[in-house]
């Protein structure tokens, strides 16, 4: 027992532990300690094995939802109050209220357990050997496993983007430059996408950055439901096993990633808006 305590540094006073922890973290590769659960693998390595799977799982749906959300937002922003718009907004509101994990559970049940169209869990048949989805030997197999979780994420995050895009479009379409664009005899699509949407996109980019935290939270839940070996599922296992070093490391890395994503979104915004010098 004593030996274990010494091994993990738990015998030192708390503030010393904390300072040592920080010093260890801010080096490369960061030292988050040794995982209880995966002893004796260091936490950092454990996390790195799962991180890319989550990035893969989150990245593709984010791109898809952003695109669909923008298109729907543009089409409904044109005629606020129309039947199409009301229907679209209502659908968005319903989707917004659906809990991520419940949706995932239902999809899993219907399409995987009952219909056997998709695998029940995991990221690749026969377990995960690669730590990076791009290195996996069978991309088709990976996509097949990822399909249901990704669909869950797309459906659950769609509403936010489409609603905000719609509202922004309504605002942009009432601006003066739209009148002139129409007067110039531009085709309606050129006015909508070339002018209005281009301006409306800017706040969307900030939104995508801000939403990252929400999407990651959702991904954690989805991974748990589908037993998908990303950082979310890892977190779940760490919680169950009281693996505090792993939990801390996960929290740190996930938070840093979200903050970084926000920062990148800000940079992209500054790059795209000619009024801002960066």
């Amino acid at each position, binding site marked *: 027992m004593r030996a274990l305590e010494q091994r993990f540094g738990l015998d030192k006073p708390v503030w010393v532990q904390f300072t040592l922890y920080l010093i260890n973290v801010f080096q490369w590769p960061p030292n988050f300690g040794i995982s209880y659960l995966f002893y004796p693998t260091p936490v950092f390595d454990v996390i790195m094995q799962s991180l890319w799977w989550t990035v893969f799982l989150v990245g593709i749906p984010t791109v898809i939802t952003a695109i669909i959300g923008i298109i729907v937002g543009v089409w409904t922003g044109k005629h606020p109050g129309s039947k199409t718009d009301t229907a679209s907004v209502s659908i968005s*509101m319903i989707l917004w209220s659906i809990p*991520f*994990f419940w949706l995932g559970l239902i999809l899993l049940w219907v399409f995987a357990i009952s219909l056997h169209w998709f695998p029940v869990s995991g990221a690749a048949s026969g377990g995960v050997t690669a730590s990076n989805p791009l290195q996996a030997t069978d991309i088709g197999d990976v996509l097949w496993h990822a399909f249901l979780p990704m669909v869950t994420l797309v459906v659950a995050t769609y509403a936010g983007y489409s609603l905000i895009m719609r509202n922004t479009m309504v605002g942009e379409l009432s601006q003066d430059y739209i009148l002139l664009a129409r007067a110039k005899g531009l085709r309606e699509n050129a006015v909508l996408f070339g002018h209005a949407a281009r301006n409306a996109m800017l706040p969307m980019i900030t*939104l995508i950055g801000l939403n990252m935290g929400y999407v990651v*939270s959702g991904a954690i839940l989805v991974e748990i439901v589908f037993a998908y070996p990303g950082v979310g599922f890892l*977190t779940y296992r760490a919680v169950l096993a009281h693996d505090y070093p792993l939990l801390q490391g996960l929290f740190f890395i996930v938070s840093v990633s979200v903050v970084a994503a926000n920062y990148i979104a800000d940079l992209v915004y500054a790059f795209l808006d000619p009024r801002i010098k960066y």
Partner: protein
Amino acid sequence: MQTEESATTASKSEFSPRRASAISGIIHSRRAQVGFGIITFFIVLAIAAPVVAPYSPYAFPAPGPPYSPPSSRFLLGTDYVGEDILSELIYGGRVSITVGIIVALLSTAFGTFIGIIAGYYMRTIDEILMRLTDIVLILPSLPLMIILAAYLGPSLQTVILVLTVTAWPAVARVVRSQTLSLRERPFVDSARVAGASDFRIIIKVLLPNLASIIAANAVLITEIAIGGEAALDFIGLGDISVVSWGTMLYWAQSYAPFNGAWWWVIAPGLCIVIVGLGFVLISVSIENVFNPKLRST
């Protein structure tokens, strides 16, 4: 994002006639009426649980055979032990909704407090408070909640605490920006010139004008808290011996699919969706009143 917009436009409702018409606008919108209807229905159901529910969800021995599908005895079937799911739903609603309301109250109170102080006193206090707020705000909520809950141990109080911690920063931000713009208004200046103390100004002048934005936020937080509570329970960080919509799904996840008990999974989730929808309708109608261009009905 939605609440930030309400912050800038809601400032128009500083005079009573305007605010009265805003409130009537909300009350009369069909959206809000549906939303209020839904919420009221569930709250009444929750309060009247002992009267309405056919069985007790903790009944021992369990009233029915496990995994029995919906029937006249058990309108929504039974769970893996044999408890009536409808009763679980009604009692569970109590817990879920109460948690939502408590979290909304606590986080709104704390967030408003921080926001007003920061916005009113500005300069250093504002800097410090906002740095603190931003740190919590920027961290992704579920991971934060998980790690806190992991240290605090799974229980209902943990869930409430952890949800409140992640909810208050957004309130603080919105209240602060509203306070900043309000404090420059003439009626605040005249109160100060008349010799009113800071405390008085805050309570008597600022708070009433912030009321609408605070209310709009509180509604939103309740909805998010109910969903959040379900998520935390689902992971197993809540008190799994208490029946709530979230814990129902926790148990259902393990046992329902392979026993074909689809009703067990559908019922609590559907309740969360419908209640959530009710709150969303209310908050959207509040926003539409303040920003008429967005009207969809």
